[in-house]
């Protein structure tokens, strides 16, 4: 590695801060970072640690799958407009392009004292710092068998199962879907799903879509979805707010809720959600999610462990765009900390921001969008919503923009 100007300057600054001891020429061992999970958060942080940290950071990324399958756009698999292969991204590209070591395996334990990650195959990975980004796990629902009643909320086989069930719809059939209690992954996602299920039912000759929402009202783009439910899908879609899911009969395709019992021909239960199991089993949660300092994404409970994406517990929306935004703040913080530079000085605190964007297909060729910005509130130490904007309804242009947005997001994260 050639020493470029900035590294020279950083070395000088570090030496200066450490009592004017020159560090130039002293070989420093690279900081070992293990990243658990190669989704939007984990792949982004691995890439940016290498991109910005060069050989100062040695990055190992662990994921059970050689490809990450994106949830983003995965509702279009249900309409047969996309295939899983369109949304599959090989993690090996992070190795060839950025020198991230990719290990296939599931992290089953995180020993914060010994600073080791245990994998299901018995392998141990030592680290100086660990980033944990396993997405979500589902909370138990009595009677739910996901092999019969799919969630399609982690893209993959469950998405295909739901699609195959929808392919069998005939005129007069009923589809039931349940919406989890907030906070859950992708605030507008379930309502987008409801629209596309209604579109499927209409194309199958008409029938009913029963939407059972555990929340008191639509959680994102409320005006847009209220309008879409009545104007586009009024004949088909019945929306029940405040319907808490109590149990499921997975063979009889019946759903029991606080608003009564419903039965259907296809049932899509999206259970309540919490941090990934490796986060919960490692003493990193406080309730359903992991508390973090959003200036670094370091755990509020364990030093040197960082939690990103859907598993972390700030008030920011659980989206892929947001997960990648958080990953950049975290990568910058880890590189600074590993170089002995400050992370909590005024200039940086004033510029801790994140953002999010979601496009929702409302029909097979029209979409809506939602965008949000967050900035650090230095008084509370939390991220504060600084602006939120949404489209006025839905249109074809936004549907086209959705693919440009997604292609750039995928490229920024996985390539």
């Amino acid at each position: 590695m050639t020493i470029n100007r900035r590294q020279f300057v950083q070395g000088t600054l570090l030496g200066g801060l450490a009592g004017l001891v020159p560090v130039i020429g002293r070989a420093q061992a690279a900081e070992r970072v293990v990243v658990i999970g190669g989704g939007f958060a984990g792949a982004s942080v691995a890439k940016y640690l290498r991109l910005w940290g060069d050989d100062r950071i040695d990055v190992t990324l662990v994921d059970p799958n050689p490809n990450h399958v994106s949830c983003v756009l995965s509702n279009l698999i249900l309409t047969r407009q996309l295939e899983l292969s369109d949304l599959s991204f090989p993690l090996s590209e992070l190795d060839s392009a950025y020198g991230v070591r990719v290990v296939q395996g599931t992290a089953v334990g995180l020993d914060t004292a010994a600073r080791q990650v245990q994998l299901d195959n018995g392998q141990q990975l030592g680290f100086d710092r660990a980033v944990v980004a396993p997405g979500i796990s589902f909370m138990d629902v009595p009677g739910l068998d996901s092999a019969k009643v799919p969630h399609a909320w982690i893209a993959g086989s469950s998405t295909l199962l739901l699609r195959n069930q929808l392919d069998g719809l005939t005129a007069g059939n009923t589809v039931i879907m349940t919406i989890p209690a907030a906070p859950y992954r992708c605030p507008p996602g379930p309502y987008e799903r409801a629209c596309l299920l209604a579109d499927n039912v209409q194309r199958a000759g008409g029938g009913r879509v029963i939407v059972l929402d555990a929340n008191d009202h639509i959680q994102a783009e409320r005006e847009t979805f209220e309008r879409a439910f009545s104007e586009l899908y009024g004949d088909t879609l019945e929306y029940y707010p405040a319907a808490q899911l109590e149990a499921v009969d997975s063979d009889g395709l019946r759903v029991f809720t606080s608003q009564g019992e419903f039965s259907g021909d296809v049932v899509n239960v999206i259970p309540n959600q919490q941090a990934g199991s490796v986060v919960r089993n490692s003493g990193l949660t406080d309730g359903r999610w992991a508390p973090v300092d959003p200036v670094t994404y370091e755990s509020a409970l364990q030093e040197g462990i960082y939690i990103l994406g859907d598993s972390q517990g700030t008030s920011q929306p659980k989206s892929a765009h947001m997960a990648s935004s958080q990953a950049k703040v975290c990568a910058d913080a880890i590189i600074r900390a590993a170089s002995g530079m400050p992370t909590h000085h005024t200039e940086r605190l004033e510029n801790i921001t994140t953002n999010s964007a979601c496009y929702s297909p409302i029909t097979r060729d029209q979409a809506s969008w939602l965008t949000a910005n967050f900035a650090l509130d230095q008084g509370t130490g939390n991220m504060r919503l600084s602006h939120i904007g949404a489209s006025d309804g839905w249109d074809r242009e936004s549907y086209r923009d959705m693919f440009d947005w997604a292609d750039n997001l995928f490229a920024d994260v996985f390539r």
Partner: protein
Amino acid sequence: MRPILIAGLLLGLIAQASIAHDPTINRLLASHCAQCHGTDGYAVGDMDSLAGESAKDLREDLRDMRREDQPENIMDHQAIGYTEEQIARIARFYASLPDDRDDLHENDFEDPEEDEEDEEDDDHDH
């Protein structure tokens, strides 16, 4: 000899930093544009690339969006989420990059000198 040299460099650096800002913080701010405009602002497909644009143009565009009375498109809304100072920093970062990604050396960016004409063109309306 050496500590003195280093101290001199350090003082120089602090002096420089107070005028020019830490360019890695400009980079961090700008990285949140990348989810839509590509890593380092080199976009794929029909999205606008930001790398190598003039700081002045980027700044003016973003400020116009930010000041829209009736923000309509997604970028009007995104721009509202940043302060004018942050917009200037983002613009400065992208202006420091080459137009062509092949000419990019990631950690070799220079913070371009503050552009006199750039500053003069600022409208101080608030």
